[in-house]
């Protein structure tokens, strides 16, 4: 029987399964960042003047900002002038009307990823807005959603078709100068998803976007905006895989959610970007700003994330609980293996009365991975009877990894009830032994224990995602005894 250590070795040495590069001609801007490049991007996308002004204001703000260094991550300095800020497939000017017109290579990419375009999409019941690099090349289920008045399209389409909505909400949750990476995104964002759920509509299907980073040296700057009107409900899925390559790529996305009275937004992410090889070469830098605003009373925003990829992750999906009785939730599983570094967590800002928030974070470190939970819970003086429960558990696999927890708790109202718990553990030899005795081999035992550790988070994921997440976790690491 192989020992636990052998099993871990075998698992952690497994190659990245989703690494491949599709050859598609790119219409790419020269590397570098300047007002001209921003104007070029804006013109390429046929944007109105106000949006160009907005981008330029963000850029001017960004120039004055300093890259943050407080996160518990180490990486080579990024040369922002060597990044291409715009890459779109050639078909941009002449957008395909049906799948037949789409480059077979792109379709093949999706096949490999198992994205259910064509018939599969019907079976899976998933509407896919597939983002290939920066411009959406396929959007499905549009008509069905349109009947209900749901708008689900790429961000650039929304700028053309629904400028009033974009203008009203863009930057209201994450201001364009919010932080270094958000400002960069605001200046150069390429595309993303736009969702608008009208009053009282319960979106009948899970909305899903698959992102792929595909062109060499192209940073990807997604911009997602989701608006849920009064009494509506939407569940949005975001999943990522990226091809194998050796150059670090920057990804600085911004996601803004707005939930009006009684609305609910559920945002789930499975992130499996290329983490770099075992020596830490290559891999994606994932510096994301995600924030939701519970604007109306009784609104609810729920973030669920499974982070297994990226070389460096810097991500804090947050909720501003402004409406009375609003609810914020954060469920996270973050895995860092080999040389991966993750500094992730959440911010819950309680403003309204009787607001409540729940934070469940599970960090798993293996190899030489460093996993940090950094979270902030702020209960303002106006937040009468606010409640928060936080639980941050870490699991360490191997003796060269690290797990860190940095919660910040600020309470300015005595009626608040705030609890924070954290623990750190490893998979015990006795647990493995117990399973072995009952005929479960070490690999399965470890997988079982890790899945059990993450159960509270997986439970929050939509069905299809939960399966994918478990699979990802098995790939990323099942081995668990140091």
């Amino acid at each position: 029987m192989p020992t636990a250590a052998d099993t871990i070795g075998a698992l952690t040495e497994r190659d990245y399964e989703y690494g491949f590069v599709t050859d598609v001609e790119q219409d790419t801007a020269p590397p570098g960042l300047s007002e001209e490049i921003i104007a070029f991007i804006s013109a390429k996308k046929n944007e109105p003047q106000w949006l160009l002004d907005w981008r330029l204001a963000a850029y001017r703000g960004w120039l004055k900002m300093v890259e943050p260094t407080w996160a518990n991550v180490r990486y080579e300095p990024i040369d922002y002038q060597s990044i291409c800020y715009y890459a779109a497939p050639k078909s941009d000017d002449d957008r395909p009307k049906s799948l037949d017109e789409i480059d077979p290579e792109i379709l093949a990419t999706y096949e490999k990823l198992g994205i259910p375009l064509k018939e599969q999409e019907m079976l899976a019941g998933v509407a896919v807005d597939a983002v290939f690099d920066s411009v959406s090349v396929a959007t499905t289920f549009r008509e069905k959603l349109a009947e209900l008045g749901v708008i689900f399209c790429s961000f650039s389409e929304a700028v053309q078709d629904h400028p009033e909505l974009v203008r009203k909400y863009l930057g209201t949750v994450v201001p364009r100068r919010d932080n270094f990476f958000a400002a960069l995104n605001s200046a150069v964002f390429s595309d993303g998803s736009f969702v608008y759920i009208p009053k009282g509509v319960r979106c009948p299907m899970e909305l899903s976007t698959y992102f792929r980073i595909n062109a060499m040296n192209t940073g990807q700057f997604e911009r997602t905006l989701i608006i849920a009107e009064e009494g509506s409900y939407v569940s949005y899925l975001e999943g990522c895989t990226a091809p194998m390559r050796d150059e670090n790529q920057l990804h600085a996305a911004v996601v803004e959610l707005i939930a009006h009275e009684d609305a609910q937004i559920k945002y789930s992410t499975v992130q499996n970007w290329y983490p770099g090889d075992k020596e830490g070469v290559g891999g994606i830098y994932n510096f994301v700003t995600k924030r939701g605003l519970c604007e109306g009373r009784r609104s609810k925003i729920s973030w669920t994330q499974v982070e297994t990829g990226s070389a460096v992750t810097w991500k804090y999906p947050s909720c501003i609980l402004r409406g009375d009785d609003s609810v914020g939730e954060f469920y996270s599983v973050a895995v860092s293996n080999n040389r991966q570094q993750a500094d992730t967590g959440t911010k819950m800002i309680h403003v309204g009365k009787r607001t409540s928030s729940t934070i469940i974070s599970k960090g798993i470190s293996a190899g030489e991975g460093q996993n940090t939970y950094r979270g902030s819970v702020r209960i303002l003086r106006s937040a009468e009877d606010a409640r928060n429960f936080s639980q941050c558990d870490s699991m360490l696999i191997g003796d060269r990894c690290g797990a860190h927890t940095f919660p910040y708790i600020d309470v300015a109202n005595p009626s608040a009830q705030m609890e924070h718990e954290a623990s750190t553990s490893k998979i015990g030899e006795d647990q493995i032994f117990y399973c072995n005795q009952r005929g479960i081999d070490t690999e399965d035992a470890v997988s079982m224990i890790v899945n059990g550790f993450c159960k509270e988070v997986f439970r929050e994921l939509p069905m299809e995602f939960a399966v994918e997440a478990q699979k990802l976790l098995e790939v990323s690491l099942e081995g668990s005894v140091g």
Partner: protein
Amino acid sequence: MSVSRGPSTAPYLDLYARRGGEAEVLRTRRQEAIERFEAAGFPTVRDEEWRQTNLGSLLRAAPGAASARTIQDRELAPFLYADCPRMVFVNGRYAPEASSPPRQVEAVALAELGAGGAAEAVVEHLGASVNGSASCSADAGVHPFAALNTGLFEDGAAIVIPDGAIVEQPLQVLWLSSPAAGAQAARGKAPAAVEVSFPRLLVIAGENSQASVIETFAAADPGAGGYFVCPAAEFVCGAGSVLHHTRLQADATDAFHLGFQHAQLERSASFDSSSLAFGGGLVRNDTMGLLDGEGSHCTLDGLYVVAGSQFVDNHMRVEHRQPHTTSHQLYKGVLDDRARSVFNGRIYVHQAAQKTDAKQTNRNLLLSKSALANSNPQLEIFADDVRCTHGSTIGRLDEDALFYLRARGIGREQAHGMLVYAFARELVEKASFEPLRQDLEERLLASLNGGGDG
């Protein structure tokens, strides 16, 4: 800590230039420390470690060396425990007439440090935690106020407990502040000038020795304000030693108190410290525990009971460097009026420190709408076979418990008082020395009655 261009250090460097001299053996150590202080400068709220501690009101006040003063016995009486060997310092200067140094141990005033005897050990360890040779990991950096104390302390206590000695009576070190009347600020206003004193304590516990030390910080006149106490204490716990430490801080409610404590533990040593803070307007304590020997254990507990516009900040850092080390932290806070508290505890587990067991708990009770509690319990773990937990709660009194008591005929005020007392009592009860326990209990009750219904 990053170097930042904070407020000017010049007035304090000037104090260094004008200092009264020191024991010859300590000169280089002090010079080194003041250079470190000069390089680091004063921290600002832009430094992560000082994010929530605004030193503005302190650094705007012009510092002056605390004046020498003789103290009457009746002024000391409220702070002393009968039969305890003691060392009394007034405004940072040793008061031999009021002191009765213990016999079993070597207790010397630093200003009188000669050569030979305890001096060798003192010179070896004094400031070692500040100057880097024994300090926590490099990223902990220079603690500016500890460096400042090392450069500027006028006098201090060095207590050397011989190997194998078991000292039954606790040793008391009283740091009394008694600023000159002129320096006192009008109440409620930031003072234009402060009298500064730099109490310095070094305790060296020999192998397999046992002792307990009580530190008391107090003001001769509780109404006196406008002074700044900047103490630093170092504890060197030899293999197998057991050292108990109680730190009672009862400064005037508008005094500044920025303290630093560092304990280094050898194999199987045990250090148990309780810090009880009732006084001070702007209070900050940085406590570090360095578990440097296999099987060592440290307990760092604390209680803060604050009201009015008091601010108290406890920064803790416990480093597990060796296997089989354990640490416990329990900090409880009771906040009333506009009081603010910060708890920032960090457990750092090095890769070698397998089988670490660390626990950290912070509980805060908010009694008023305007009180604010910040709690940042942090873990940094680089070893896998460890058990580390932390927990933090912030809340108000349990309405059900209040109802229960009131249903049994206990008035609201009294029920309130009982519950708050019950919350805080755990840390007072820890004191095993009866006179100390009684004193702490009285202080707790007094501070609850003073601020409880205000």
